[in-house]
């Protein structure tokens, strides 16, 4: 992975540089918001790890400028607990993920890999996570090379959730996305589809959890 770390705290950035380099990644460091912004205009990275409190230009403005240019590079925002409302803002501005300082190095490494994978999956129409593989074009999912034999609606649901990882989708929202106007959307049918899909995904890194009374939420286990 080619990573840009934008962080002005020396202690933290040195530890991160060392760990990421130790894992064999190419990682560059910027300590100034405006300089990072200038660099991002010309160079491309697989993932940007962006601190919020930066000299000369804060992280949000860097992020906003990237998104305004149409730069879709995945961005992981670093925030402190006391800036807790920043998270919401960060995601609204276009961050792909966030981590609260202080954090576990393995956690941030895993998140970065997940972001990069997700993005490359979008680009290539194939989502790969461990032994799991979902081919949007061929509309089929494989686990350890074995076709999960998903039905049409299950594929639709899986595609929907893989595009909305970590977001709660209500039953109504799922129904809206997989039924056309002509079909009578039945919440019961959604439940049955979810149950079947979940059973077929059993053992894969993709987990769709039910939150009773609210809806469903998909997440990826990274191991």
């Amino acid at each position: 992975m080619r990573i840009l770390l934008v962080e002005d705290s020396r202690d933290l950035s040195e530890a991160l540089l060392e760990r990421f380099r130790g894992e064999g990644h190419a990682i560059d460091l910027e300590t100034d918001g405006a300089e990072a912004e200038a660099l991002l205009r010309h160079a491309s990275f697989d993932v940007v790890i962006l601190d919020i409190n930066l000299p000369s230009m804060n992280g949000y403005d860097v992020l906003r400028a990237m998104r305004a240019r149409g730069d879709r590079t995945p961005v992981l925002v670093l925030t402190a607990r006391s800036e807790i409302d920043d998270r919401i803002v960060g995601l609204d501005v276009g961050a792909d993920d966030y981590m609260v300082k202080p954090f576990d190095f393995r956690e941030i490494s895993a998140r970065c890999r997940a972001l990069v994978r997700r993005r490359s999956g979008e680009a290539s129409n194939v989502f790969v996570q461990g032994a799991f593989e979902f081919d949007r074009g061929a509309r089929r999912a494989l686990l350890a090379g074995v076709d999960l034999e998903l039905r049409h609606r299950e594929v639709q649901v899986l595609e929907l959730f893989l595009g909305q990882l970590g977001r709660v989708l209500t039953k109504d929202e799922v129904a809206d996305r997989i039924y056309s106007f002509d079909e009578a959307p039945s919440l019961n049918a959604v439940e049955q589809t979810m149950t079947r899909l979940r059973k077929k995904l059993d053992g894969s890194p993709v987990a769709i959890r039910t939150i009773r009374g609210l809806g469903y939420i998909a997440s990826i286990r990274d191991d």
Partner: protein
Amino acid sequence: MSRARPSGAIPAHASGRRPYSLRRRLMVASMGAFAVLIALLSAGLWTYARSSANETYDLLLRGAAIAILERISVTPEGIDIDLPPSALEILALDQDDRVFYRVVDADGATLTGTADLPSEGSLAKSPPLQEPVFFDSQYSGETVRFVVNGRTLLSADEPQWVGVQIGQTRIARNAMERDLILKGLVPLAALSIAGVAMARAGIGFAMRPLAGIERDIRERQPNDLKPLDALPPREVESLITAINGFMRRLDLSRDQAESFIADVAHQMRTSLAALYSHLEAAGDQGEAGTVAVLRARDQARRTVRLTNQLLSHAMVIHRADKEMFETIDLGELVRRLMEEIVRDERAGGIDFAVELPPPPTPAKVMGDPIAIREALRNLVDNAVRHGPPDNQITLHVVATTLRGRPAFAIGVEDQGPGIADADKPRVVERFYSSGPGGGSGVGLAIVAAVAESHKGRLDLADRKPSGLRASMTLPQSPLPGGEAP
């Protein structure tokens, strides 16, 4: 509730209004009262001076008229007028005044004197007047005071009426009027000036206790929050009581802040000391120190959590002071919170459920979304921490009432061991942690602080067969300005 405002000086006229001066207000009021008084007295004085000047000179006029009338007699040849020189001399005592006269018969025809004196209708009356009539009239370019008097003369054949009209210019009487007014006004003005001066002195005297109180406050050390010991006048007693009450609350709040810092310092030191000793052990054991390193990592994690919780607690209290209230959609808040929890959640075996009010009821409250989210997050963390791996955790938002006002109960139910009744009042205290899964001991203190800052309530209740229902009841909108505790 204790709300310590920062002690930084807030300019009294920060809001754009200039501070008003009590002294000026009192002075303006007393001077205004004096002005009205003087105006009224002057009007009275003027009326009095005018009427007494008139009376005095009218007597002279009348005397002159009577003197002339006395000397008119009827002779067989007709009316004989023997004008006494003294009559008019009395009137001419003032050198500048001019005197006019005429004698008329019953038909108004002038028998002698100036014929064109204005009569103002006083001669046309019938029966012909016997009593003197006074009036002012313009004559020869001046205001002239006239008297008209008449007398019926008895003669041989029939009674005959003659009248006399005498006029005198007003110079002397105006001078007397002015003199009277002046002699009245000078002492009045002196009295007013003395009155204003005394009022000013009195105001200063009355304000002196306030200056003493001001000096007391100004000369204090910043940490001296003893009540003011000034014996205040009755009028400002409630102000002093309020100031003393405020100082008491400030003192309490400062004590709380100090104990918070002391508690935090103690907790952090303990936690860091443990971390340090684990690392030291790891260093001593060389290659075999892996276990100690792992322990150190756990300890570091606990320290991080403790720090985060303390910051969160401080943030919640800080935000409570600022009252950053807005309308919150609780459904949306719960949804975002669930995303966060599922994302960060350690144990995957927990069954989460959400209970929201049925759709037509909008679950909305006025509040601080960050604080409420933080409180709810802590309740969920507690439920995860203290519950079994296959815990069933339910977040509920239920419409209810609080002290007769519409409210929402927002809370979390779990299947953990619950909290013993004896511990319930204590768990909301800072750094009090119960049970084997004990955390930092700050979580419920945060929730309690959030409930308090929203004028709500925190309830902890056991569930059957086991578990805890922790629920914040928040009014849909806290009363503006807040109700006094």
